[in-house]
């Protein structure tokens, strides 16, 4: 094992991770607090035989990713709230056309321009539901620069194996916080590549919805028809029939939810069997929460690394013994709805909410709230 020790920001860690994951295309538009990812990719991609382009806006960036992905490259963009909003239509198209790509959203305080340099976690619902229609994708969230590096590689692997866009929810604390990060050796990293089609396999359908169809590269002679309109298994547009549309969106949903065992990642600190209280959190907030519960035997902490799809059954099981649950979030509360959904009405679910000003939730605040 030969890992490289570096003192870098979470944004830089994302860029290194993307390069190590085989990302060879980046299109983006500068926006605080994500720009350092773009700066690093601008520097690293030409050295690694990849392509970097500064798009005219976020709409262009996400659509350039779609083109590059179909031309055979692993593609990524990074943005923050306002840019993420602009990218939604493109992400929806990527869901519909099953285009693998990774969108990093370094969350800042919103809505609108909000506070550009201040961390927040308010894009959770937008990451899941920001687009129109029935659509499902994967949302991941790291807690630290080190995990940003490791998890972005996983994001590419999920994206490639399931032919789906993956949203990577970082935040300003992770993005601008500099910490010691260990970069892996290429041999240590396991990469997943999208499946190429064998002869006449349909490119937009499969008998088992959990198995994504293969994806050819443009120019390989498949005469592939890619369309964001409702299409049949072979890509032909069908904007009339109920059956075609239902079959398509149902399969796209099944593709994500049917693979939840592979996608759903979480961390448990403490003993869920014996705990009376729980903390459910995601992202950088979890680090304060972990410090807060140190030495408390009656508290279990559940950190969600995968925020969508969410394994509700598992969450229900883990929280079945507790009577008080804290949900600390750098927002007015979004994850809390998921927690409320999986517990009985007599369980007290309390949000610890703070947003704006770049002030983190401190361990003392969680400790205080745990008193009930």
């Amino acid at each position, binding site marked *: 094992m030969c890992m490289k020790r570096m003192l870098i920001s979470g944004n830089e860690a994302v860029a290194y991770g993307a390069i190590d994951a085989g990302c*060879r295309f980046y299109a983006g538009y500068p926006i605080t607090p994500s720009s350092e990812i773009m700066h690093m990719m601008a520097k690293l991609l030409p050295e690694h035989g990849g392509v970097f382009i500064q798009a005219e806006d976020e*709409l262009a960036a996400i659509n350039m990713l*779609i*083109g590059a992905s179909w031309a055979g490259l692993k593609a990524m963009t990074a943005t923050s709230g306002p840019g993420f909003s602009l990218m939604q239509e493109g992400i929806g198209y990527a869901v519909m056309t099953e285009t693998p790509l990774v969108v990093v959203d370094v969350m800042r305080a919103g809505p609108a321009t909000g506070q550009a340099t201040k961390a927040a976690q308010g894009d959770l619902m937008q990451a899941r539901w920001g687009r129109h229609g029935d659509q499902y994708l994967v949302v991941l969230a790291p807690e630290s620069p080190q995990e940003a590096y490791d998890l972005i590689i996983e994001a590419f692997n999920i994206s490639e194996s399931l032919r789906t866009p993956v949203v990577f929810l970082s935040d300003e604390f992770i993005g601008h916080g500099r910490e010691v990060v260990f970069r892996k050796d290429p041999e240590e990293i396991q990469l997943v590549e999208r499946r190429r089609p064998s002869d006449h396999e349909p490119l937009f359908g499969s008998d088992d919805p959990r198995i994504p169809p293969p994806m050819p590269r443009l*120019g390989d002679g498949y005469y592939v028809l*890619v*369309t*964001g309109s409702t299409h049949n298994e072979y*890509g032909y547009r069908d904007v009339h029939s109920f059956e075609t549309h239902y079959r398509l969106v149902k399969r796209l949903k099944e593709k994500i939810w049917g693979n939840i065992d592979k996608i759903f990642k979480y961390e448990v600190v403490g003993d869920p069997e014996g705990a009376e209280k729980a903390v459910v959190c995601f992202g950088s907030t979890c680090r304060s929460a972990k410090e807060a519960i140190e030495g408390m035997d009656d508290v279990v902490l559940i950190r969600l690394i995968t925020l969508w799809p969410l394994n509700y059954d598992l969450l229900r099981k883990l929280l079945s013994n507790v009577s008080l649950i804290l949900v600390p979030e750098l927002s007015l509360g979004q994850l809390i709805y998921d927690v409320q959904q999986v517990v009985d009405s007599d369980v007290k679910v309390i949000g610890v909410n703070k947003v704006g000003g770049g002030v983190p939730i401190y361990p003392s605040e969680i400790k205080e709230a745990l008193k009930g």
Partner: protein
Amino acid sequence: MSGHEHPSLKYMRKEVLPTAFCPGCFNGIVMNALFQAFEELEILDLKKYVFVSGIGCSSWIPSPYIKADSLHTLHGRAIPVATGVKLANPDLEVIVIGGDGDLASIGGNHLLHAARRNMDLVVIMINNLVYGMTRGQAAPTTPKGMITPTTPYGNPEEPMDVARLLASTNANYVAKWCISQYMFLKNSFKKVLGEIKRGFRFIEVYAPCTTFVIRRENKTPGQKLKELMNTCIGLEKLEKMPREERTKYIPTGVFKENDKPGFIDNYRQYVSISKR
């Protein structure tokens, strides 16, 4: 039927014909000119050509009618998708086909920036003067005074001259032809596919919407076609006319022609710096 087939059909997905276009829609004529250009260039298989389109009637030309790889993308976003394809695999020739609403209105910014970059794309903009797919609302190219569902008292806005606008950018090739100028159009396609093979190449085709422009004028497509043969005239000829006469005509011709390195060449140069 005996075995004779229209020469265009060998480039088309025959299983989806007839097309969904209205009877007399000029889109089909643009296809004929494009395919004839391919044929004359002896390009019989479009395997290495990628067609990208957005939303609108003309965006349906490549998807699904052209037998090639095609990406039918979001409204206005054909050019960024095409840019991504071209950058990721420069060996592919990427052709964008779209309408005036798609490329010049919702996708206007992308059009300008692709031209600014001299991005190595062929862009064919079929200007039908309205939003044909959604029942003929005013577009940025709709002439002043025209009555449409969104301009019931006559369009108060001046139209945009897309070809002239792009001629002022860094694009390599900008031409505008009328659908009646079939041979010029075909030769222009030949030029950008066979001769100037890099940079941003833009061809506007003036082809009024059969259903929402021509029929509103109480004309048949054939009559309109014959009328256009007289109203569309070359740039040089137009310039010789008295100023007040000019407004009656639609200027066509090659607005700009160049063979400067496109973005791909410039990017390769840029990358070579990074490796030094």
